[in-house]
């Protein structure tokens, strides 16, 4: 099976450049002919994940894998972890700082935005060890 994969390192606290990884990912998907609606969903997931890495995790890595039938996006960090995933998934719940809110983020929509745009989404998190957000989008059907 022909799989395309790549990864982007995301620096913690780097608010000026957040979104550049997702932008690069979106361009890569365009080059390999992924339809625009799928590209948008993938880039929203990657962007929200990237924002989370910058805001909460002290950085991390975003990996993506393009299979013939699906795209898998994995955001992984070694940050503080999420103590209560159900609470973090609630719209409007946020622990982001005022600085983040001034940028228009930290509204507590990130994880629910990821879930809404993904066909499947799994969060694995251990307090003090880190978080993995694993999302899949099906390309056809």
């Amino acid at each position: 099976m022909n799989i395309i994969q790549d990864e982007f390192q995301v620096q913690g606290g780097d608010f000026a450049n957040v979104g550049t990884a997702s932008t690069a990912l979106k361009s890569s998907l365009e080059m390999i002919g992924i339809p625009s609606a799928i590209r948008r969903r993938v880039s929203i997931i990657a962007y929200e994940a990237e924002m989370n890495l910058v805001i909460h995790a002290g950085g991390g890595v975003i990996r993506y894998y393009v299979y013939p039938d699906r795209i898998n996006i994995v955001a992984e960090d070694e940050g503080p972890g999420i103590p209560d995933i159900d609470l973090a998934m609630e719209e409007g719940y946020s622990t982001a700082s005022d600085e983040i809110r001034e940028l228009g983020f930290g509204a507590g929509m990130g994880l629910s935005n990821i879930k809404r745009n993904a066909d499947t989404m799994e969060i694995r998190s251990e307090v003090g060890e880190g978080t993995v957000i694993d999302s899949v989008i099906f390309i056809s059907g």
Partner: protein
Amino acid sequence: MKLRQISDAIEAIVLYGNELLDDIDVDYAYGADLMSDVLAFANPGSLLLTGLTNVQIVRTSQMLDIPAVIFVRGKRPREETVKLAESLKMPVLLSSKSMFETCGLLYKAGVLPCNIPSREAKVED
């Protein structure tokens, strides 16, 4: 509706992209200062109205294939914001009116609102 008509309806100042206004069609608009809400609720390809000026506005727009941004209440976007928009050929308009008035004028001119989906529903392409 052509972006030119939209610009005229709100008496916008075109900070970048005047020559592009006749080439871009927009049917929907979304107004917000919360970019996470924009990512959640704006229709792809709709126009964005915001009072924030940072570079994330353009990055967020890029993710959603938003063709142009209107900065409301006389806010001027930062230099890096305009530069990124220029590199994407994304027109940048300024409205000296409030968000409410700017949106109201566009609504009156026939620009449509983005539908806020049920939270139980999945995103439809």
